[in-house]
């Protein structure tokens, strides 16, 4: 495909491809805004969580700990544990972003979420030589950020009239799961990759009871280990570049 990539086209494609995940984040933003004030945060602080911390799970956990009267030091430490998985995303993205100046790395680092990582790693790994892939990354980041803060704010204002059960019934949160399913399937191109996915998924279920999402990160390491070991056992050395390129139609081209 000889499509011409411009800053604008990449930015818009980043927004477009993140859209299902934006939908998936809506109920969580709403519920966070609605519940945070019940948990003893001031409305300004609730919005401050979304504006500055900008990390869904840890915002919920942090607000919950505030409600329980846990000490500030422990809340901050817990937040670190919950969010340390982002370091893995940074390591995975780093080879594709090392040419970028700080004025790009700082904001894109700040905005790095599960969702944006999932979308942009696919774009970076595409073999085309577009010089504006970071604009795609920017589009994904900005739309996730604006969306999260918008729905936090609406949740704050609507407050008591929001019933989490009604939102659950809509099933919007499933939009994230189903998008991730499509992305995973597009990357399962070798048996080690399939085994890694299965191992990580099952481990995450078994380890779900671990506090502070630690089960998630342990499951990822188990999955990586299973992938590497089965690669060796099968004698199939995959190319060493961290490609996760996807041939899925409907993904950014």
């Amino acid at each position, binding site marked *: 495909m000889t499509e011409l990539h411009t800053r604008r086209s990449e930015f818009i494609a980043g927004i477009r491809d993140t859209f*299902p995940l934006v939908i998936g984040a809506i109920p969580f933003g709403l519920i966070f805004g609605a519940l945070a004030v019940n948990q003893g945060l001031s409305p300004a602080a609730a919005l401050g969580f979304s504006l500055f911390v900008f990390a869904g799970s840890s915002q919920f956990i942090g607000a919950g700990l505030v409600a329980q009267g846990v000490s500030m030091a422990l809340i901050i430490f817990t937040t670190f544990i919950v969010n340390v998985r982002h370091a893995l995303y940074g390591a995975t993205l780093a080879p594709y972003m090392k040419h970028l100046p700080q004025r790009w790395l700082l904001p894109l680092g700040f905005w790095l979420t599960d969702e944006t990582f999932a979308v942009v790693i696919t774009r970076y790994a595409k073999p085309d030589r577009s010089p504006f892939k970071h604009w795609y990354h920017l589009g994904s980041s900005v739309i996730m950020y604006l969306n999260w803060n918008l729905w936090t704010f609406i949740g704050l204002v609507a407050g008591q009239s929001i019933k989490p059960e009604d939102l659950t019934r809509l099933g919007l949160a499933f939009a994230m*799961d*189903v998008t991730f399913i499509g992305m995973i399937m597009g990357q399962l191109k070798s048996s080690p990759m399939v085994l890694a*996915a299965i191992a*990580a*998924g099952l481990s*995450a279920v078994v380890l779900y009871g671990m506090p502070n999402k630690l089960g998630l990160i342990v499951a*990822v390491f188990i999955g990586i280990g299973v992938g590497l070991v089965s690669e060796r056992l099968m004698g199939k050395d*995959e190319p*060493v570049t961290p490609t996760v390129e996807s041939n899925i139609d409907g993904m950014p081209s």
Partner: protein
Amino acid sequence: MNEVLLILGMTLVTFLPRYGVLALMGRIEMPQPLFKALRYVPVTVLSAIIAPDLLLKDGSVNLALNNSFLAAGIIAILVSWRTKNLLLTIVLGMAALWVWRAVFPV
């Protein structure tokens, strides 16, 4: 509790793992074994995020028919496998969820 300090602290410990490794790893020559390991990050992270969503209900495994996330998730996996089309997977997966819930209410 001083909310400004709390937000400042939480912001810092969230920003550091996000930005720090991204900025640092770009400057050093990454050893090959690490490269190889990192290829598995996207697939394993996404699997580890969705598997509990599909299989667990209130912390325990739910394989009953009324687990609409699991049913629609399986349908989405099949659609994705057969069509290799992400958008179709999302649309049919969401449709499957709503239909399943209508047929098998919680």
